[in-house]
């Protein structure tokens, strides 16, 4: 009888074992996603006309076309996210959208092809992953390769343009990187690329002396919140794994001091195992708190436990067995672990990618008493990196962002002092430009309140004169 079979199937289902997990795993899951998004390469983002996306890929990516199919939205895009905004979260793990263009052909439906740049190849090949995004062709500028080349880090780099956007494509070691900018002249862009390369890949560059054998500094990513830049993050790739470091300070001297120079500071002193195993040991993530506002991660994601233990043992100058013993002793999925590991409030994750500041939607921070607090990125009214009462940390430069909305980060040439943004139906807002990195141009975070449309962005000099103007509608992020 049908009812018997259904009832039996129901009972079997209810009795089927479900792998253990916990609410703490949700935090890890979110952070793991975010780490994947910034796997190795930083992007400098911009807003240029209606182009508002740049993102780069992990170094072992070849290339991938992400194609639309019939113009229907591929994912459940929240209502405020209009067509044209991409959701990298829906890409396969480790893949990132980097741009879009009509070059390479359009889909049969006439919508633009979207691709992901990969490493070691400038060919764009079809890849069996499809993302369907409804982006009107008319809004997509075409990539125009140029004959121009510049030297970045001693290597010839090609310049291309997409609308107002200029690209510099260059190699760093075995990797192809792209730095993009708007409202920048090529020389400024080149200098920025140079700086990125120097910081990330140069012998003795930041991070180089700290890395275990075989690890290669990949690139530096800038972290920022809203109107100021509040931190940096770094990713390194090595044999079989990756390391991630994020900081709540933008003071490179301080980072270096904490990492290597401060007397009495034990390098990478692990305060405890932050995360336990996830999914039958498929992932272990360790975190070290190195100093005020400096946190490092190592994750076993995608590699074997043995390979991971080798990495950690190198870092800690211990044997793999000793590390494994400690990991096994710490209960997994235990929020209390956080309370044992950190004594200061630090943002757990604060990378930004591709012009959109991808903060973890939910992240965990601790106050000085070790009391856990869950913060939410813009949307809850709580700005990341800030204690719950909104008091700025690490200097008064941090200001809470507005409560919601996406925001992009603009890289601006040196004479731009402010960005004046006029939102449709709203008053013009003026965003100051901060210059955290000498020679890198300025950076400004521009918020786009939920549902708001940017009509005009003006780059203004210190005296208020208009240096450049982007007319909308402009999509941020």
């Amino acid at each position: 009888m049908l009812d018997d079979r259904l009832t039996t199937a129901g009972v079997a289902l209810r009795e089927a074992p479900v792998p253990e997990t916990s609410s703490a795993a949700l935090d890890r899951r979110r952070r793991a996603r975010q780490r994947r998004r910034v796997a190795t390469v930083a992007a400098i983002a911009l807003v240029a006309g209606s182009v508002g996306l740049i993102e780069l890929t992990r170094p072992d990516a070849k290339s991938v076309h992400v194609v639309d199919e019939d113009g229907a939205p591929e994912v459940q895009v929240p209502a405020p996210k209009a067509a044209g905004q991409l959701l990298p979260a829906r890409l396969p793990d480790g893949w990132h959208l980097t741009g879009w263009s009509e070059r390479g052909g359009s889909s049969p439906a006439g919508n633009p092809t979207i691709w992901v740049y990969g490493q070691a190849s400038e060919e764009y090949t079809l890849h069996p992953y499809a993302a369907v995004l409804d982006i009107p062709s008319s809004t997509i500028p075409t990539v125009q390769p140029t004959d121009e080349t510049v030297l970045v880090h001693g290597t010839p780099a090609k310049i291309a343009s997409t609308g107002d956007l200029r690209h510099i494509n260059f190699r760093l070691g075995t990797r192809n990187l792209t730095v993009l900018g708007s409202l920048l002249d090529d020389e400024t862009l080149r200098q920025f690329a140079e700086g990125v390369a120097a910081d990330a890949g140069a012998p003795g560059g930041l991070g180089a002396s700290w890395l275990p054998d075989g690890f290669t500094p990949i690139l530096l990513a800038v972290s920022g919140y809203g109107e100021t830049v509040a931190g940096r993050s770094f990713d390194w790739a090595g044999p079989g794994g990756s390391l991630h470091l994020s900081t709540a300070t933008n003071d490179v001297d301080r980072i270096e001091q904490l990492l290597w120079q401060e007397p009495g500071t034990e390098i990478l002193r692990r305060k405890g195992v932050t995360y336990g195993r996830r999914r039958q040991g498929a992932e272990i993530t360790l975190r070290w708190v190195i100093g005020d506002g400096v946190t490092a991660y190592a994750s076993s994601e995608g590699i074997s436990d043995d390979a991971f233990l080798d990495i950690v043992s190198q870092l800690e100058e211990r044997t793999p067995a000793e590390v494994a013993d400690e990991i096994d002793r710490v209960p997994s999925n235990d929020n209390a672990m956080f309370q044992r590991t950190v004594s200061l409030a630090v943002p757990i994750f604060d990378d930004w990618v591709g012009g959109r500041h991808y903060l973890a939607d939910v992240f965990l921070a601790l106050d000085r008493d070790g009391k856990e607090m869950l913060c939410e990125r813009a949307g809850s009214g709580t700005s990341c990196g800030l204690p719950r009462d909104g008091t700025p940390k690490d200097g008064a430069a941090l200001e809470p962002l507005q409560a919601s909305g996406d925001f992009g980060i603009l890289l601006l040439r040196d004479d731009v002092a402010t960005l004046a943004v006029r939102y449709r139906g709203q008053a013009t807002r003026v965003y100051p430009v901060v210059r955290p990195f000498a020679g890198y141009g300025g950076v400004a975070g521009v918020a786009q309140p939920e549902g708001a449309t940017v009509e005009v962005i003006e780059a203004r000099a210190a005296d208020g004169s208009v240096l450049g103007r982007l007319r909308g509608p402009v999509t941020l992020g």
Partner: protein
Amino acid sequence: MATFAAFFAAEYGGVVRVLAALTGDLGTAEDLTQDAFLVAQRRWDDIAAYDRPEAWVRRVALNMSMARHRRLGREARALLRLRTHPVELPEPADEVWAAVRTLPARQAQVIALVYGEDRAVDDVAAILGCGVETVRTHLRRARARLAELLREEDDDAR
């Protein structure tokens, strides 16, 4: 107000099982379930005040499952057109649940909740956000179709 952790502990397994039945893949079910709970976690202050937070999270999870199913279909069509390898959907793990997965989504959800979670019809209606009679209609049609697929006699249809 219950803590999120308690809510999670109480409901996680049930949601995973229902989604496993509907998707045929435990890993996918876990992913979707965690996504649903992530949404709940972010909005816990509001959701905890709901009369039926467990119904809310199931509805979110079921919607996510449906969206995934649609996406797989689109991807498969696109890949076929592009003459690349089609997406391989998971092999059915069980004949009954495999048959359930061939039903229209709403019917499959009703079967999963009624038989998989042993829920009453009015409970299912609350989870799916529809009327009791609507659930009964879905249930009746689902059973009729399953009877064909499984070559069984539908006791209720007699």
